[in-house]
């Protein structure tokens, strides 16, 4: 269900400990710190292994996240805006990651450009509450989605390379 390279990526992202959602104001700050620590470590890991692929930041409450992700295909870099809200039921339910500019361009998306996750993602997430955080959602959810969908969309001519 999870391939070896994803497994290795995952094992290098710190696990989180605090079970708190955005409605629990005080404890949520602690959880948010853990989220940032895990994300920073994950981005550092990616940089070291030459597979840097996203940046994220949040509003000061840590309830709205936004940033960029990119995918290399035939030596060209395709970049997309990423955004998601932290649901009230987080971390029991994972964030629904969206790529708004691809909304309507692929069937593997729900309204608003939310990516369609595999059948494996939710059970895996459920088994790892509250240890998995945003970094894990990116590694397990968005990364494999990009790897499957973007080459396909490029091949079909639905997305084209834009000089930045």
């Amino acid at each position, binding site marked *: 269900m999870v391939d070896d390279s994803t497994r290795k990526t995952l094992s290098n992202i710190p696990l989180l400990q605090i079970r708190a959602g955005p409605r629990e104001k005080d404890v949520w700050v602690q959880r948010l710190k853990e989220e940032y620590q895990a*994300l920073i470590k994950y*981005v550092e890991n990616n940089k070291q292994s030459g597979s840097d692929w996203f940046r*994220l930041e949040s509003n000061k409450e840590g309830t709205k996240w936004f940033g960029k992700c990119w995918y290399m295909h035939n030596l060209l870099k395709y970049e997309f805006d990423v955004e998601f809200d932290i649901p009230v039921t987080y971390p029991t339910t994972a964030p629904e990651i969206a790529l708004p500019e691809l909304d309507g361009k692929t*069937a593997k998306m729900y309204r608003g450009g939310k990516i369609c996750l595999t059948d494996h993602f939710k059970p895996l997430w459920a088994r*790892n509450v509250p240890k998995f955080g945003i970094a894990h959602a990116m590694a397990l959810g968005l990364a494999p989605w990009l790897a499957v969908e973007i080459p396909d969309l490029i091949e079909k001519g639905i997305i084209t390379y834009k000089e930045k």
Partner: protein
Amino acid sequence: MPYAIDELQEIIGNLRTELVEPIDSGGVNNTRLGRDRVERMSAEVVDSNPYSRLMALQRMNIVKDYERIRDKAVAIVGVGGVGSVTADMLTRCGIGKLILFDYDKVELANMNRLFFTPNQAGLSKVAAAGATLNFINPDVEIEMFNFNITTVDNFDRFLNAISQGGRIAGQPVDLVLSCVDNFEARMAINAACNERNLNWFESGVSENAVSGHIQFIRPGDTACFACAPPLVVAENIDEKTLKKEGVCAASLPTTMGITAGFLVQNVLKYLLNFGEVSDYLGYNALSDFFPKMTLKPNPQCDDSNCLVRQMEFQAKPKPVVVEEKADNEEPLHATNEWGIELVAENAPEINPTSTETPVVGEGLKLAYEAPEKSSETSEETVTTAPPDDASLEDLMAQMKSM
């Protein structure tokens, strides 16, 4: 044919007036306006009485005092394939008040389902539904909210609407119906109803459109949505033959209509106290199998409000079920010419604990394995978060500068 500017302006002016006040052309206008409100539900059997067939339920001894339905308020979360039909049915039944929640727009891709029409494409689902429902039955009070309930800000508005939006202002609604298509929204409804102690029905149709279910959740009394992994109807389709490539979800008007029918039937039974309300009713469309069961709450549920409700429920004195003594001890049917017999329904009751996977009824399964509570090691990872010495602001700045 060339027109002068003033001629064109006159034409536009006339068209504009027509838009505001449609031309009275015989009976057409009357049909467009629908009917007037009625003050009381009448049992009079005349063609012009919109409630005659519903009030007949009283005469048939099915429902006592049908008109109580006008005192009831129901919140419907999700006005899609199941929710819109649910709202339609409750409106035709003369429900007192409906509160609709959805943040989606009507699309042509929705036309394989019931209720919405192509001319409504582009409108918000709540606005489109509100207009149609008001036209069908102007006696129903309709409140609409066009937002996603799972985000922090909207969740509070949602809580407020369901706990203050009853038929009597400031009172909670009588029931919340979940007609959403995703786990996140179901968990949000579950959290809200556990917190405010509101009874609700969960409903759903599988992504391959060949099964559906409804589940009645009474906080503390039956399992909440977080007590165990979602209970789904086993379809017995070989995973290998199930193709999901290139699409997120399939849907059929039949499965959705049937699920909405099950839902509203049980809502009516609950609101008007007749028959037996099902705790869980499933539908397997491939084999026409309808599993039923009851799921008890999990004493180790992750939702702290669920645990509070469980304690309250246990402390509450249980109503004593008075068995009606049959006046007539003689067999109901002395002869049985056709050899008809009753077969006991298999409706197992299960009690999930987090240590072992709950045993579910025949034809049902859990959506996935329940997470192990005590295990510290994950099968995927071993690292733990470093001790926190940096402030949140520092971390945010560090992340931003990467």
